């Protein structure tokens, strides 16, 4: 009997360990990023690092200011949200409320495919269609620009924006809509003035998730944004926080390499901020 209990306890313990691996991974990632990211910040100086406007890591007199990357990441993400969220939102309202069943099933397949396309494929198509297209339409010398990155990011966040909004729209109780219809509102008015406000927290979650996805995307952006460390401007070649890390990692050394880890730390900080926001939304919607 005792032996059996010991065995059960041992199995319990094994499962506990397996469960704690996720916690351990988060800790390891955080600790490693902080440890490898701090030395360069200390050496360069926090304000100089965060607010320096010039990044010239390979120059004779290297300068490590990452303000261009931070601003590019913020502008790029904001642009993607401004384009992607309205499209995703209206598409979700259509799918949740107006679409016939067959259309809904077909679109769900479409969105699934859109979500599953690897980011390098988006990058490839962006690089060979979008970049030359921007060059021709806007008559600029090089189409690899912030604008190209914004468009690609907007497309990439669409599936998650649609899916999350859709789920929250579908979970709004029928009674709300019925009450609104009974009071004489048209069906469209009901969808936008009753259902959408009721699904507010879910739609907000969708936006925040979109921000997270856009700010963390590296490969597709790397292929279309041109990768020059300029201050952000719509038609100029720019570098994001993610691409700054990715593009110099393979040949970096010394302080330059440490500075790349510091950039990753800054990116990680942004992501944690987004995660915290998501948590707050979730807590608030549960308490209501």
């Amino acid at each position, binding site marked *: 009997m005792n032996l059996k209990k010991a065995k059960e306890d041992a199995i319990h313990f094994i499962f506990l360990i397996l469960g704690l691996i*996720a916690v351990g991974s988060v800790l390891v990632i955080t600790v490693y990023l902080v440890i490898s990211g701090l030395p360069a910040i200390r050496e360069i100086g926090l304000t100089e690092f965060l607010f320096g406007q010039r990044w010239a890591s390979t120059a004779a007199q290297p300068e490590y200011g990452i303000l261009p990357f931070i601003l590019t990441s913020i502008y790029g993400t904001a642009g993607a949200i401004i384009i992607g969220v309205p499209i995703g939102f209206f598409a979700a309202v259509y799918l949740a409320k107006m679409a016939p069943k067959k259309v809904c099933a077909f679109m769900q*397949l479409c969105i699934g495919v859109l979500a*599953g396309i690897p980011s390098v494929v988006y990058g490839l198509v962006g690089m060979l269609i979008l970049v030359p297209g921007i060059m021709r339409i806007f008559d600029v010398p090089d189409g690899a620009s912030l604008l190209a990155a914004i468009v690609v990011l907007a497309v990439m966040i669409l599936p998650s924006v649609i899916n999350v909004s859709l789920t929250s729209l579908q979970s709004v109780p029928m009674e709300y809509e019925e009450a609104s219809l009974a009071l004489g509102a048209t069906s469209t*008015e009901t969808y936008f003035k009753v259902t959408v406000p009721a699904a507010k927290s879910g739609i907000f979650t969708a936006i925040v998730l979109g921000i997270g996805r856009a700010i963390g995307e590296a490969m597709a952006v790397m292929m279309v944004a041109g990768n020059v460390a300029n201050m952000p401007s719509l038609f100029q070649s720019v570098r994001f926080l993610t691409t700054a890390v990715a593009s110099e990692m393979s040949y970096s050394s010394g302080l330059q390499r440490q500075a790349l880890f510091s950039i990753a730390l800054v990116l990680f900080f942004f992501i944690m901020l987004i995660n915290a926001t998501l948590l707050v939304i979730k807590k608030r919607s549960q308490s209501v």
Partner: protein
Amino acid sequence: MIQQLSTSRKIWGACMKALCYISIAIVTVLTLFMLLYVFYKGLPEVTWELISTSPSYLRHTIGILPDIMNTIYVVIATLVMVLPIGVGAAIYLTEYAKNRKVVELIEFAAETLSGIPSIIYGLVGMLVFCQFMGLQTSLLAGSMTLVIMNLPTILRTTQEALKTVPQSYREGAFALGAGKWRVIRTVVLPGCINGIVTGCILAVGRILGESAALLFTTGFAHNLNGFIEGLQSSGATLTVALYVYAKEQGEFEVAYAIAAILMILTIIINIATTYMGKLMERRNGQ
């Protein structure tokens, strides 16, 4: 009953409806464009020679067989490692855990993991697995990075599936005198196998599409190796190969060919997840 709506209400309603139709049209056109364009450009380039040979500098030919094999190795290695961890963690959360705090901690960790961008996984993977653990840039190091990345996926899908196993099954088994482990092994796990399979399919999809996390952990060699040897050496997966061919070597034909292959895999995985979802719904409905 004739409703008289004011003009402004009519216009507002029509505008909103129009915006909905325009948005859904944009999404549809985008998807179809991506699919058709990549197939149009890529499928003609997918030749038997391309997918069955290694690149040769002597003959100036490019073959992607090593990249295909590397992708398969990475998928297998990652699944073998992530399945026990993810399923085990889910079992702990739903079957064993009594302490609310521990459950919240693990769920919070999983959520945090799923929010971390792949480039950060790649960086930490490089520091921890390649350098600290001395694995060098190898498929094994890449797989271990992907294990952490896919852990939340497997954990969540398994957890959802475990919740659908009726409590009465467990109680029945306990009443017959079975121990906890035995109940889990013989009653709970078989009941949630669909959820685990769905998790696996989702994870495979994510592994196939991943590139940023693998760039610094698996490297980009194109050598044809066996499984064990392959895990220990550096090698490009299909996505990394696509990136290298497109961005660094300007071989757009090969890049499109790889893109077309990846698209086909994406569609297959999508259909498989939809099918598994329907299967689970049907079973839960019973």
